[in-house]
C-alpha cells in the first residue's frame, strides 16, 4: 500500500485548488450558452410547424442518449474535421476549454429546455397579461415579470445542474483540460503517480465540501427568493404546534 502523508495531501490540495477557476469558467459559460440553446429548443418545441418540433425532440433524445465522455470526444475530435480546411486547422489550435464549453452547452441545451418549460408553466398566465395591462410591451413584461418568477422556480434545477456539471467536468481531463481533476493528475503524473492515494484524498476534500456548500447556497437562494413560502411555512408550523398543544391539553 502506498504511504499516505499529510504533506502530500496538502501539496495536491494547494496545487489543484487554483484550477477551480477553470472549473467555474466552463460551468458559467456553458450554463449561459446552454440556457440560450435551451430557450431556442423550447421555442422550436412549441412551434407551429411539425418539422421544427421534430428537430427539437430529436435533439433532446439524441443528446440524452449520449454519454458525456463520448460527446466530449466527438466535439473535441470531430468539430475540426467537420469544419475542414482552414477553419478546421484554426479550430485545432483553440484551447481545450472551448471544446469543453461547447460539449456541456449541448448537454445543458437539452436539459434546460425541460427546465424552462416547467418554470414557465408554474407562473400563472395572468402574470404576463397583468404586465401587458399596465402598458408594458411584450419584452418588458417578460423581463420584469415572467423572468424573475421563472428564475425562482428553476432555482433547484439550476443548482442541480451546476453541481452535476462540476462533477461531469472532471471527465474533461481525458482531453487535456486542466480543471481540478486535470491539474491534480498533472501534478501526480510528474511524480510517476507515486502518491496517487494522497491525490485522491485531496480531490475528495475539494469536491465533497464544494458540492455541499453549493447545495446549501442554492437552497439558501431559493429560500431567500420565496419570502411568502417562508411565511407560510412558519404559519404552518405554528398551526401544527398549536394543534399538538391542544391535543396534549386534552
Amino acid at each position, binding site marked *: *500500500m*502506498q504511504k499516505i502523508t499529510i504533506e502530500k495531501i496538502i501539496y495536491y490540495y494547494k496545487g489543484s485548488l487554483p484550477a477551480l477557476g477553470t472549473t467555474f469558467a466552463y460551468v458559467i459559460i456553458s450554463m449561459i450558452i446552454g440556457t440560450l440553446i435551451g430557450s431556442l429548443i423550447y421555442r422550436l418545441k412549441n412551434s407551429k410547424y411539425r418539422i421544427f418540433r421534430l428537430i427539437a425532440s430529436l435533439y433532446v*433524445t*439524441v443528446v*440524452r*442518449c*449520449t*454519454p*458525456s*465522455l*463520448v*460527446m466530449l*470526444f*466527438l466535439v473535441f*475530435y*470531430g468539430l*475540426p*474535421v*467537420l469544419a*475542414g480546411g482552414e477553419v*478546421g486547422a484554426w479550430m485545432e489550435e483553440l484551447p481545450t476549454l472551448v471544446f469543453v464549453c461547447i460539449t456541456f452547452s449541448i448537454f445543458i441545451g437539452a436539459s434546460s429546455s425541460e427546465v424552462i418549460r416547467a418554470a414557465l408553466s408554474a407562473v400563472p398566465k395572468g402574470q404576463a397579461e397583468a404586465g401587458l395591462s399596465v402598458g408594458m410591451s411584450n419584452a418588458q413584461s417578460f423581463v420584469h415579470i415572467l423572468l424573475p418568477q421563472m428564475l425562482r422556480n428553476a432555482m433547484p434545477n439550476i443548482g442541480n445542474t451546476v453541481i452535476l456539471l*462540476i*462533477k*461531469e*467536468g*472532471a*471527465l474533461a*481531463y481525458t482531453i487535456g483540460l486542466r480543471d481540478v*481533476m486535470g491539474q491534480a493528475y498533472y501534478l501526480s503524473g510528474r511524480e510517476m503517480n507515486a502518491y*496517487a*492515494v494522497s491525490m*485522491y484524498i485531496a*480531490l*475528495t476534500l475539494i*469536491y*465533497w*465540501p*464544494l*458540492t*455541499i456548500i453549493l447545495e446549501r447556497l442554492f437552497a439558501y437562494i431559493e429560500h431567500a427568493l420565496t419570502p411568502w413560502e417562508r411565511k407560510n411555512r412558519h404559519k404552518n408550523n405554528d398551526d401544527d404546534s398549536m394543534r399538538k398543544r391542544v391535543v396534549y391539553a386534552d
Partner: protein
Amino acid sequence: MQIDYEFIRRALPDIARYIPVTLKLVVVSFLISFPIGALFAWINYKKVKGLSQVVKAYMSLIRGTPVVLQIYVIYNVTPYILASIFEKMGSEINVYRLDTTWYAYLALSLSSTVTIAEALRAGLETVNKGQFEAGLSVGLSAKQALWHIVFPQALTTAMPVIGNVTVELTKATSLAFIMAVTEITGRAKIIGGSVLRYFEAYICVFILYILIIAVLEQLLKLLERKISVYRTGKHNYMSVKAI
C-alpha cells in the same frame, strides 16, 4: 481531413461485437446496486440509529465526488486492500490477476446505489402506513407484509427514477475503459487510435449508444406499465394521467 465513411462502415460491426460487454456491465452493476440501495432505503426510512448516519454520510460522499474519481479510487486502491486482507488470511489468491471487470462492476454500482436508495426511500414514504397494518391484520408476518404489500407499492413510485438510473448507468459504462475493460467505448478508442481516426470511431459509438438506450427505454416503459398494477388507487392514477 475528410470523414472516412468506409472506415465507419468497417468499424461499426467490429465495435458492435462489444455490446454484450456493455450490457453485462449494466446488468451486473444494477443487480449489485439494487439490493444494497433497497437496504439503504430501508435503513433511512426506519432511521435505524447509527446505521442511518453512516448511510447518509456515504450517500453524501458519493453524491459529492465525480464518478471518475470514484472509479480511480476503486481501481487503484481496492487491490491493495484486498491483497493485504488475503495476505493476513494466508490465502493464495493473487488479486492483481483478478479480472478488472469486477472493479468496474463495483465502481459503476456506487453511484446508482445512492440514487436507487433515495428513490426507494421516497417511494416507501408515499405508501400509506395503513397498508402495512392491513397486511398484519390479515395474518401476514411483518416480513411478508413488507415484501408483498409495502415494497411493490414503493416500487411503483420509484420506478421512473429507477428507469433513469438504468439509463445513466448505461451511459456511465463508457467510463469503464479507464479500468481497462474493453466495451464499446474502449474498443472505439483502440481501433480509432490505431489509424488516428478518433472521430469516425466515436461516431460509431454514438450511434450504438443511441440504439441501445432507445431499446432500453422501450423495455423500461413496458416494465413500468407492468409494475403499475401494484399502484394503490389505480383508477385515480389513470384519471390523473388522462388529464
